[in-house]
């Protein structure tokens, strides 16, 4: 207000009369007059204590005068532009030739509606009503009747400019207020929008939380400070089975297992007292069906603005299944541990060669403690020769997932070696797409190895012994062969020595005969000469000498003996030839390894010839030979069988010392399939206890040096094994023994030649 008091009060005078202009100037631009009355009035009007000032001057006005309406409009516009608007205009009604007063006012208000206007008129050109209808009922319009009083003008000017200023001040204040209101409104709107957004967000959040709270699988609840449920989430029935009504309003502790009530109480108390949340209490809660469910309880306080705990919110998580699963897992692990402990030594190796699992037996096998073994690489633990080589079985099993078995050995500090059979089995991930490790199973085979070694050693020794035995046996067989050959040779030699003896003797005798003949021949020569000479005396002398010599030299005996000498010598030679021929027939020395046609009867005869010397002093042989088909066989071997049987018979009879010859009967006959030879003696027979052993190798009843015990065993081999025949013995003690040799007529397949002798030996031994 005080500031505006200093603003110049601009007044525009519009009048076509110059004098009027001067009048206004005179009135409004006169020096100051006492304005006490005005000040008082002002104080009364504006309500504040008047501050009377004796020095106060009259209002000074900035007065402009124009003659025409248009000019006035121009001035108003200009003033507005200069921000020095006119506050009051005095407008003459009539201003020929230009606009009249009304028109001018209309135009001015159009530009500056705030301007206060006083119409100056000498006569009433327009009625008030007409003016009002033209200009509206405005409080800014006053009418001044001409001729006007100076004071009136001055007061008008003062009042109206004051009014303008006040109006202006009011307007400014209004604008200011409006501004404030507008700003405030804007602020409110912003806040409002924010609130709306927040509300929306909260609503969304709330929705979300509600959904969360209602849909989470855990029970979310709210407790009063007294511990009763004020809210439970709808999962309660699903988890614990109760209806909501059975829960709400009831205390939490009512649903808690007796043993867990204490901790639960403590928890709630702690929350209330400390105002902090508590977490993870494991307790059992009652299910409606009477079971107890394990839950994990967490709870937090709700506080009012004063920080007082007003409620408790909590969440209960059903851990029964987890607990069961956990228990199951523990049980499984415990089982696994037990199984592992009981199992053979094993370890589990992963793809990094780390030992992931091992059992007690593994540790004791390798002399390790569990601590030493865990967390090691397999090759640190089992430093086997194959480690770090392409032969590493673990690596191989992982690369080609197959079960692999190998032997490993390890020495302890005492140098004792442990040998194990390791079985490496790959194990896979869940879908069997990759090998994630190897289970290696060990079996201690040290003892077995040792046993194997011992067995091998024993075996080697046995084989050695066997070889030696075989050698010995073959030697014995060879000896037997040699013995029988020797025996045979002895017999044969005796048979031959005798004829050779007397033939040789005869030959020597023949020589002496010849010398005697030569002597006699000389005498006859001399006699012939004497006859030719006609010397009678000497003729008679020679005759006498011849006769004497003839008698002395037993010439007559010789002449008579010569024929006998030759025939006997010839017989001796024939006997030797015969023996040699028979010997060849018997042994078939020339082709003994081959199979050929054989007449059993002839074989028997040959054998008898050869054995004659062995037999003839002890037994008489009766032959009862039937016609037989020829068979294919090894004749030498078969003859040996007969020889063995016959010689045995002769020896048995001889052993009886009965003082007379025994009898051996040889019968042959043929069946459809076999040729059969029965050799029966009337010897001592074979005791029943011995009968079963007669074919055993080295079995003999003869005194030492008399037999090898192989004869019948070799015979059995020849007949049964080599010729697929039968050799049967039948004996009655004190009555005699019968051997029956049956040979298949079909014979045997041609021999394999050179291998036979060896085979013969082996078979003879092995029987």
């Amino acid at each position, binding site marked *: 207000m005080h500031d505006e008091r200093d603003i110049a009060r601009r007044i525009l005078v519009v009048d076509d009369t110059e004098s009027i202009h001067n009048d206004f100037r005179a009135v409004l631009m006169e020096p100051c007059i006492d304005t006490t009355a005005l000040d008082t009035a002002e104080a009364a009007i504006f309500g504040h204590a008047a501050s009377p000032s004796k020095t106060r001057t009259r209002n000074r006005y900035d007065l402009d005068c124009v003659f025409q309406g248009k000019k006035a409009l121009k001035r108003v516009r200009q003033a507005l532009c200069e921000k020095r608007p006119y506050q009051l205009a005095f407008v003459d009604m009539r201003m020929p030739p230009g606009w009249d007063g009304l028109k001018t006012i209309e135009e001015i208000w159009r530009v500056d509606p705030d301007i206060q206007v006083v119409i100056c008129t000498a006569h009433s050109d327009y009625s008030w009503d007409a003016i009002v209808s033209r200009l509206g009922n405005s409080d800014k319009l006053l009418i001044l009747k001409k001729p006007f009083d100076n004071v009136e003008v001055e007061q008008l000017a003062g009042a109206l400019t004051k009014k303008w200023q006040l109006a202006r001040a009011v307007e400014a204040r209004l604008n200011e207020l409006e501004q404030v209101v507008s700003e405030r409104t804007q602020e409110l709107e912003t806040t409002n929008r924010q609130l709306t957004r927040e509300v929306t967000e909260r609503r969304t959040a709330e929705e979300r939380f509600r959904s969360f709270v209602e849909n989470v699988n855990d029970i979310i609840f709210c407790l009063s400070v007294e511990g009763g449920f004020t809210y439970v989430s709808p999962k309660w029935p699903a988890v614990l089975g109760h209806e909501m009504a059975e829960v709400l309003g009831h205390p939490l502790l009512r649903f808690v297992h007796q043993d867990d009530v204490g901790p639960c109480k403590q928890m709630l108390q702690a929350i209330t007292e400390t105002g902090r949340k508590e977490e993870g209490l494991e307790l059992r809660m009652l299910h409606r069906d009477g079971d107890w469910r394990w839950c994990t309880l967490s709870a937090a306080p709700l506080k009012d603005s004063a920080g007082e705990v007003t409620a408790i919110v909590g969440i209960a998580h059903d851990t029964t299944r987890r607990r069961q699963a956990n228990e199951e897992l523990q049980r499984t692990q415990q089982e696994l541990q037990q199984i592992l402990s009981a199992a053979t030594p094993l370890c589990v190796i992963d793809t990094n060669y780390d030992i992931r699992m091992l059992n007690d037996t593994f540790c004791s096998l390798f002399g390790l403690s569990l601590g030493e073994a865990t967390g090691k690489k397999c090759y640190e633990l089992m430093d086997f020769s194959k480690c770090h080589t392409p032969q590493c079985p673990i690596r191989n099993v992982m690369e080609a997932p197959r079960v692999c078995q190998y032997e490993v050995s390890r020495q302890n500090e005492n140098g004792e070696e442990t040998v194990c059979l390791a079985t490496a089995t790959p194990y896979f991930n869940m879908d069997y797409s990759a090998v994630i490790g190897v289970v290696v199973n060990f079996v201690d085979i040290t003892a077995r190895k040792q046993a194997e070694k011992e067995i091998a050693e024993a075996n080697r020794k046995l084989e050695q012994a066997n070889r030696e035995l075989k050698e010995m046996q073959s030697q014995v067989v060879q000896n037997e062969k040699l013995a029988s050959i020797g025996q045979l040779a002895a017999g044969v030699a*005796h048979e031959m020595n*005798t004829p050779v003896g007397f033939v040789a003797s005869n030959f020597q005798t023949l020589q*002496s005969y010849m010398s005697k003949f030569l002597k006699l021949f000389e005498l006859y020569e001399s006699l012939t000469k004497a006859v030719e000479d006609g010397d009678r005396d000497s003729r008679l002398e020679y005759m006498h000498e011849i006769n004497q010599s003839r008698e002395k030299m037993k010439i007559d005996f010789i002449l008579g003996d010569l024929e006998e000498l030759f025939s006997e010598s010839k017989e001796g030679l024939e006997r030797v030839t015969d023996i040699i021929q028979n010997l060849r027939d018997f042994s078939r020395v020339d082709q003994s390894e081959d199979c050929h046609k054989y007449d059993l009867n002839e074989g028997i005869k040959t054998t008898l010839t050869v054995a004659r010397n062995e037999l003839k002093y002890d037994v008489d042989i009766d032959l009862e030979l039937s016609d037989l088909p020829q068979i294919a066989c090894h004749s030498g071997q078969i003859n040996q069988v007969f020889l063995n049987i016959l010689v045995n018979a002769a020896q048995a009879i001889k052993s009886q010392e009965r003082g007379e010859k025994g009898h051996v009967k040889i019968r042959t006959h043929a069946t459809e399939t076999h040729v059969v030879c029965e050799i029966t003696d009337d010897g001592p027979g074979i005791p029943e206890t011995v009968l079963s052993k007669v074919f055993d190798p080295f079995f003999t009843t003869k005194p030492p040096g008399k037999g090898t015990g192989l004869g019948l065993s070799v015979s059995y081999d020849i007949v049964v094994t080599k010729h697929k025949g039968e050799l049967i013995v039948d004996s009655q003690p004190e009555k005699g023994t019968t051997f029956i040799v049956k040979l298949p007529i079909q014979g045997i397949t041609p021999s394999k030649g050179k291998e036979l002798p060896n085979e013969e030996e082996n078979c003879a031994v092995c029987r």
Partner: protein
Amino acid sequence: MKKRTVLFVDDDERVLTSLRRGLIDEPYERLFANSGFRAVGLLLAHTVHVLVTDLRMPDMSGLELLEIAAADYPDVIPLILSGQPTLESAEASSIVQGVHRGAIFTFLAKPWDLDGQLKKAVRQALACHKTCIQEDQEPSTAPAMHT
């Protein structure tokens, strides 16, 4: 003068005939027997100084004969003429012992060397006979034939 007599025993007649003819010029009586049994008879009937016998013979073997001779005619000097190249142990040991004891004068093997061995051996045996040593007589020229 006492005749000196040698008895030859062999179961093979051919041996005996060959000896008979081979020894026709020998200065002693020769007796021949084709079995032990006959030999025992001849020993009984004749004074025999030397006995030459085979070993393997039926009924009575050479050893049996030698035992009888040794028992009943201890003065008879025994010789063996055998074709057996090997002797069974029992026989062998008794023969070898006999030879060593002097109970058997010598062992002649068949085939024999008539002139080189047999004749000499028989003559040596006869020379060893105590009666022959005592009565140093001429050999008889007439052979005695016994069969």
